[in-house]
């Protein structure tokens, strides 16, 4: 409706012009103004720029109808407004009042529904003739996308007088209690312009608010959404964002990357550029749960981390929880990143495609049954062998070939207004080789179905079930007699049932059950061709991880909110499996081996509660104080001795000899927004402890190890930090800046370990970067022209350097040697990226809309160190620095919209 109202009349209507006297002509906007004045109604018109009419000052509605009757223009009336449109009448038979949920009769059970689509209209809620006797009435609301009919999640509804706020849930539903009378509700959120709806509230009722997306607002809206979350919600350390934001963020190789995007947030670090995986508040890379449509993604990267596995065209939104992790999530002790797929437009077919030097993408949105059933399909592939030639020789990949593709699909079915069913599919495949004789490959697969149901205004549910798969192989065939394939695979089936029950206006209870059935092919080493290698197969690892949770969001007073959750997780390692038993109280080793047993059924049980507590106290309307505490358990571990996620990582379940990782985090934050709501400031601090973190001894055999526990050293860790962030939501300059001071340490303090790392003392992790400053900014010169700038500074990460040198007689050269781990720091990291963005024009009638992003990644050309290492050359131990992106990398992105 707003779109119609905003249309400017452009063309002429020759038929009308030819019948009229020139002196009686009137401009279109004058006609509209005069007609509105004369009949007292709002008029929206698409009639031509000029028309001839007698006595235009006294124009009436009948007069206009008479003039238009022989043309293809039709006049429609809707909600007290007139719409003059070519070719058709506006459909105005959409019931303003209807029965809710099929309830019959005229009694109290009848709840009227109003559809609020226009910000200039005053809508009536409830029975005008039978107003409620109560001072406050209950409003059940649903926010939907006007174009697609999809419910919109995360929309903030604010009534300022009195101050009542609500946030739409996953079904677009919200609930609020308002005093009777005239109320204006402010509506803010991602993808929409700030808007409002006016209501005259008489009694209980249902409001269906229809909104329209506006992509041009994305940059600001993301920040806005963050503000609403941070000041009003009880969540600490939660970020929600849209990947469309990426278009204005300069990226290496010009490819939008959701995982790189989250690394611009405070508290999220990575070991280095072009490395897959990220570290959240001192946690390791395997302590982050990455969910894609509820399915787990174990390897979220393509091409060794240069690209994320997620095509940005297929992502609807992503949520990162780095502190207060909702009780519905579990299984990792550091963070949860939940990514949701886009659904196709259910009204009209549309799509997008891109062709680049590195990748090509295709995205199709296909409505199958209008407004009911749609299919979203997307795919991406690369032809990136040439990039391998550009990698540093030291990287080991220079002579390799590499390629990947990924496919995604979403079948979305709106069964009715209260039920929705989606089927998601995702498949990605990577292959690369160092030479003809050494090949790697891995793939991710996720298939799931989800049924969301709005049972009634208090209760909603979501059920999902699916299958996740990850596998990996490595072929080595250079020596025919030793040719072999190493393979590994994870298969897991999951079920999740979540219920939201609003017991009271100020109390929302969430509860549910999550279950994962793991079946891990822990490793197979098999001969290829005429190989003399023996077939070796590790016992499959089966386990059932189940959790039930209960979470309560309670707005105790207007100022105080509490969120308390408990998650009871249980893990059963199941047989049949052969495993070792070791002497009581001794470290697992061959010398302490007591017996090897084969068992069926449940071979080990782990169970424990996880607590999630958070609270928010509103000091002022625009300032709140929060605190939170959560405990987490993790039953699956990455088996790797590198600090980043590598393409050869495998995963291992807890079992009789490997305990689950455990962690807890205490966090607090202060949030403030300026009176003009343009600036938001936040300060968060945290302290985190980790135990039973898996670290591996030197020379550990990680692959095809039948008793990995003998190579594992249980390690404890702790992390703490302070994160300061400033966000600017509006205006020509917008963006955010953050500074964080954080530390993270590990210690192998088990007295049974003979030679613990660094003598059993605390040592910094490889991602311990104390000082970090990040800036993401966008300056809009005009509505179309903007300049984006990223700046990233951090202390260099710890690394291990030689303690000295010695002469090796056997090798006839000097050799470095090492003692303490991570005792030195790489040089500080600093990078600035710039991009100049030209947005499309506002000519809606134009077929094509073009936008450009011209940018430079690492504009300072700084050779940031990825690693330093020491080798003997020409009789001397020489140090070398490896930089992944050692120079400015220009890129140009061209978008065509039509």
């Amino acid at each position, binding site marked *: 409706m707003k779109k119609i109202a905003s249309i400017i009349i452009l063309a002429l209507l020759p038929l009308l012009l030819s019948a009229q006297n020139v002196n009686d002509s009137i401009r279109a906007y004058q006609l509209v103004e005069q007609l509105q004045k004369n009949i007292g109604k709002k008029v929206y018109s698409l009639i031509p720029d000029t028309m001839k009419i007698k006595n235009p000052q006294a124009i009436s509605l009948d007069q206009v109808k008479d003039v238009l009757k022989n043309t293809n223009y039709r006049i429609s009336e809707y909600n007290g407004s007139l719409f003059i449109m070519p070719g058709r009448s506006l459909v105005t038979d959409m019931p303003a009042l209807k029965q809710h949920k099929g309830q019959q009769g005229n009694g109290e059970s009848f709840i009227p529904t109003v559809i609020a689509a226009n910000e200039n209209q005053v809508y009536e809620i409830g029975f005008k003739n039978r107003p409620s006797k109560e001072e406050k009435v209950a409003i059940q609301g649903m926010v939907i996308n006007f174009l697609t009919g999809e419910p919109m999640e995360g929309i903030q509804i604010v009534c300022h007088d009195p101050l009542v706020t609500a946030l739409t849930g996953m079904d677009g539903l919200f609930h609020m209690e308002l005093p009777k009378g005239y109320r204006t509700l402010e509506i803010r959120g991602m993808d929409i312009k700030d808007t409002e709806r006016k209501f005259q509230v008489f009694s209980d009722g249902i409001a269906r608010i229809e909104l329209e997306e506006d992509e041009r607002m994305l940059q600001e809206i993301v920040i806005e959404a963050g503000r609403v979350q941070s000041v009003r919600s009880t969540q600490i350390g939660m970020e929600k964002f849209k990947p469309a934001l990426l278009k204005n963020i300069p990226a290496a190789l010009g490819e939008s990357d959701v995982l790189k995007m989250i690394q611009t947030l405070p508290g999220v670090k990575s070991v280095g550029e072009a490395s897959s995986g990220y570290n959240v508040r001192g946690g390791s890379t395997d302590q982050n749960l990455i969910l894609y449509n509820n399915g787990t993604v174990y390897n979220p990267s393509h091409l060794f981390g240069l690209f994320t596995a997620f095509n940005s065209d297929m992502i609807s939104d992503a949520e990162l929880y780095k502190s207060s992790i909702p009780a519905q999530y579990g299984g990792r002790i550091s963070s949860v990143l939940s990514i949701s797929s886009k659904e196709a437009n259910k009204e009209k077919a549309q799509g997008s495609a891109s062709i680049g030097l590195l990748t090509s993408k295709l995205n199709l949105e296909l409505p199958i049954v209008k407004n009911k059933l749609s299919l979203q399909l997307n795919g991406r592939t690369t032809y990136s062998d040439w990039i391998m030639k550009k990698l*540093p020789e030291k990287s080991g990949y220079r002579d390799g070939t590499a390629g990947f593709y990924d496919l995604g699909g979403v079948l979305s079915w709106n069964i009715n207004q209260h039920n929705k069913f989606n089927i998601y599919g995702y498949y990605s495949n990577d292959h690369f080789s160092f030479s003809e004789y050494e090949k790697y490959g891995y793939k991710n697969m996720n298939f799931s179905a989800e049924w969301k149901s709005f049972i009634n205004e208090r209760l909603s549910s979501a059920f999902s079930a699916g299958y996740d798969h990850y596998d990996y192989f490595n072929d080595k065939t250079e020596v025919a007699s030793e040719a072999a394939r190493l393979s590994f695979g994870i298969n897991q089936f999951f079920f999740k049932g979540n219920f939201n029950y609003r017991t009271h206006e100020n109390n929302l209870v969430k509860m549910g059950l999550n279950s994962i059935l793991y079946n891990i092919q822990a490793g197979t080493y098999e001969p290829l061709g005429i190989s003399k290698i023996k077939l070796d197969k590790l016992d499959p690892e089966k386990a059932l991880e189940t959790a039930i949770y209960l979470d309560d969001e309670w707005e105790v007073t207007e100022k105080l909110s509490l969120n308390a959750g408990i998650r009871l997780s249980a893990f059963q390692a199941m047989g049949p499996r052969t495993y070792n038993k070791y002497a009581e109280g001794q470290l697992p080793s061959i010398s302490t081996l007591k017996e090897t047993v084969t068992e069926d059924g449940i071979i080990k049980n782990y169970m424990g509660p996880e607590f999630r507590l958070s609270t928010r106290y509103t000091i002022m309307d625009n300032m709140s104080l929060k605190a939170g505490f959560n405990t987490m358990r993790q039953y699956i571990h990455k088996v790797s001795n590198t600090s980043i996620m590598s393409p050869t990582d495998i995963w291992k379940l807890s079992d009789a000899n490997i305990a689950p990782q455990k962690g807890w985090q205490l966090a607090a934050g202060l949030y403030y927004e300026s009176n003009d709501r343009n600036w938001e400031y936040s300060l968060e601090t945290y302290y985190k402890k980790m135990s039973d973190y898996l670290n591996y001894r030197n020379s550990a055999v990680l692959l095809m190890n039948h008793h990995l526990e003998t190579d594992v050293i249980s390690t404890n860790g702790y992390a703490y930090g302070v994160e300061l962030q400033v966000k600017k939501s509006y205006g020509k300059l917008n963006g955010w800046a953050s500074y964080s001071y954080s530390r993270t340490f590990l210690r192998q303090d088990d007295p049974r370990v003979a030679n613990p790392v660094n003598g059993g003392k605390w040592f910094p992790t490889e991602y311990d970067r104390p000082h970090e400053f990040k800036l993401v900014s966008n300056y809009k010169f005009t509505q179309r022209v903007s300049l984006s700038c990223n700046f990233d500074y951090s202390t260099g990460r710890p690394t291990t350097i*030689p303690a*000295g040198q010695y002469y090796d007689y056997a090798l006839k050269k000097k*050799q470095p040697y090492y003692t303490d781990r991570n005792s030195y720091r790489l040089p500080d990291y600093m990078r600035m990226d710039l991009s100049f963005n030209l947005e499309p024009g506002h000519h809606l009638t134009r077929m094509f809309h073009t936008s450009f992003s011209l940018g430079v990644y690492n504009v300072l050309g700084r050779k940031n160190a990825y*690693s330093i290492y020491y*080798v003997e050359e020409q009789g001397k131990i020489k140090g070398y*620095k490896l930089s992944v992106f050692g120079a400015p990398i220009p890129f140009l992105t061209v978008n065509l919209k039509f």
Partner: protein
Amino acid sequence: MKKIISFLLLAVMVFTSCVEEYNAELPEGETDLLVVEGTIISDSLCTFHLTKTYSLNNTSNQIPAVNNAFVRVSGSDGTVWKAIAGGQGSYSIPVGHLNANTEYQLEIEADGVTYTSTPQRPVSTENINLSFTQNKPEENVQILVSTAPTNDAGTHYYKMYYEEDWEVITPYDPTYEYDPRTDKIVEMDYHKNRGWIHTNCNSIILASTVNFSGNQLQEAKVYSAPIDDTRFTTMYASLVKVRSISQGEYEYEQIRAQISSEMGGLFTPQPSELPTNISSSDKQHKAIGYIGISSNVSQQRMFIYPRDVNSTYKQICDVLSDEDLAENTPKELYQKGYQIGNYEVFPTGKIEEWTKDKCVDARLLGATFYRPEFWP
């Protein structure tokens, strides 16, 4: 309706990663550690090198040897073999027969501190058998080793070492040569077109039976011999020595190999401390090294003939034209890297052919005239 087609263009894409020298001043680490190199092998003269570690900032080429140490091998049965100092930190011990059921250790007294290696039983090595293969004519020759079957069920670990010898024969075998000292062409009383090249392994080669069926090495790769040089032009000999080692020594050598060559890559694990089996009596002084104890070392030499493999080595040995000879004196030709390939004097004249020196003198290809004793 809104449709988007986006074209990602990476204009002027310059992917400029780099490796450059890093000369930062490093903090002084823990130095002055005792470094012990050597292996106790039954019935052999075992040499041990004792040195000290020193600062990275010390660029001197002088090796800090430990010269005044007392070194001996002792067994749990009371056997002791003492070392004879050879200077520059070198100590030789004539080790007698090692009993398979006795534990032996190396003992060192240096600077008032006693260091001992972990007592171990000697590890015996099975007989080995060598073979070779070449996957494709353009690929290097792989030298493979197999070990004899064993009844021992545990994984066997090996450290390997090899020596290469090959014969080179240049295309020309002249009887005259230019003598730069006299600036004359003189008759030769020797042949310089035939020689032998010898090289030693300078890397750490490890193997284990963990992946092989039958718990024995079966055509495990020892090394690849390049085919684009003179190796396989005449006759090639490969001597491979294999010594069984303990798992501890295997892990020590793995880390030593990593430190030696595999550093700094994107997915390379961080370097780590060498897991020594040498400890000091006061637990304060650290040492580097891993003393392995072996009953024997298995070795085998294998000859490879040119007919057995494809060599891609090509030597261009064109003779100089008459014009070149006319324009240059013999001295000038010699200085430009040419030598006489053929020279014959007849009553009516002479034949004088000059060609590249490497086509004439095998020494210029890296060979010596020393013919190995084992050469057939």
